[in-house]
């Protein structure tokens, strides 16, 4: 059963908490690709939590996780980028709203995969555009430098999403499909 989007039961609360902790605990792993910009495999978790639990849980878990990671690794919270993590997860979670999509029960059709990829790509670039604009407006960073950071981070996140996030979600769905397709042996 997919639970409703707005109803918060205990599981929702715990999922946000653990999702945030997981994202926060693994975000330190990264390969530097541009000035103060890293390829972070943890981006895949945003896709996974979005697809499994929906955009709201994804947004809050991504935001909390990013803030925690900033607090324990850099001593300053980069609010624009933290919101960006949330926005990415929210977009990727849009697939959760598709009518007959259900990761928990292994229901995912071909067009769901296509939509998931589209949501992911749009989400990654919308969120980075937001984070970049935030830095230019609020921090007063130069446009050209931000453009380099945003584009390289976008390509990195895209790669992580397609190489790590998407296969992980597909593997999870497939595993659950096997469980639900058991038939009685006569």
């Amino acid at each position, binding site marked *: 059963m997919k639970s409703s989007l707005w109803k*918060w*039961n*205990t*599981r*929702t*609360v*715990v*999922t*946000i*908490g*653990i*999702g*945030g*902790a*997981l994202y*926060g*605990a*693994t975000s330190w*792993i990264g*390969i530097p690709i541009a*000035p*103060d910009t890293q390829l972070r*495999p943890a981006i*895949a*978790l945003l896709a*996974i939590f979005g697809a499994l639990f929906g955009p709201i849980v994804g947004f*809050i*878990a991504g935001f*909390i*996780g990013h803030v*925690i990671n900033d*607090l*324990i*690794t*850099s*001593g*300053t*919270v980069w*609010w624009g980028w933290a919101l960006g993590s949330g926005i990415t997860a929210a977009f990727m979670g849009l697939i959760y709203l598709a009518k007959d999509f259900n990761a928990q029960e292994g229901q995912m059709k071909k067009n769901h995969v296509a939509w998931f990829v589209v949501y992911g790509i749009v989400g990654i670039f919308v969120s980075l555009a937001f984070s970049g604009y935030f830095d230019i407006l*609020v*921090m*007063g*960073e*130069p446009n*050209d*430098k931000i453009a*380099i950071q945003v584009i390289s981070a976008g390509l990195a996140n895209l790669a992580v999403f397609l*190489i*790590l996030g998407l*296969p*992980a979600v597909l*593997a*999870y769905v497939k595993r659950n499909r096997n469980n639900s397709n058991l038939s009685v042996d006569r």
Partner: protein
Amino acid sequence: MSQASGLYVAGDSFFHRMDGAVKLILLLIWTVVTFLFMDLRVFAVMLAVGVSMLLLARVPFRKMALLFWALTIFTVVNSVFILLITPRFGTTLTESDTPLIPLGYDTVNTETLFYVLTLSFKYLTLLPITLLFIFTTHPSRFAASLHKLGVSYKLAYAVSIAFRYIPDLTKEFRTILNALQMRGLGISRGDGTLLQRARNLTQAVVPLLQSSLQHIESVSDAMDLRGFGTKPQRTWYMGKVMTEGDKLIALLCVILLAVGIWLKRSLFPGFWYPFG
């Protein structure tokens, strides 16, 4: 719940006793005020105030050194790249151009150098207050404060769980990585090419996800059994009553914000450049 402490350092300074909600207000208003300006004088004053507050809290420097250096390196790298990518950016702010360091393809001018200095100070200004917040606020007490500020207790509890499970999940993640390494699928330098190491890391995703989903199951069952979420309100074991002093500090924070906005509108509207 000893693991819940995270970075928190126990102590009995003025800031340790201060209400968590007030500290959060202080952090947020401080951040907003910093965001408003692009003026070295403002940042110098704020940084001095921030550092003295940090000294007052008597957090051992050894604990903070790592974060201090992390931000310093971040800022230095950021500055160098701004100078390399946009060596004349300062001119767009000051409308003057004083060549300083030739780069070959372009010249770094004094304006940009001063701009980079100002930007670095802006980032550094945010550091002491953030350190103050994370080192003197107990995570459980922080959840109680969030609730006091009007955040729904379910959301506050989610934040609390996130802090609580970071150490557990980090341990779990390391165990998985060690298990993979034993099977020859390490992710450190020397375990193969970058691509190979990245591929090995992907092997860790599914087990980590599985164990987290199991965590979710057991934790939410445990909370359901204890009746979490049955009532519209709840109290907090770690919650405290705000004192008069706390309310005074909260008032000072609001005044700080008002002064910040007034200064921004009247005295320091834009980028300050003394040599122009």
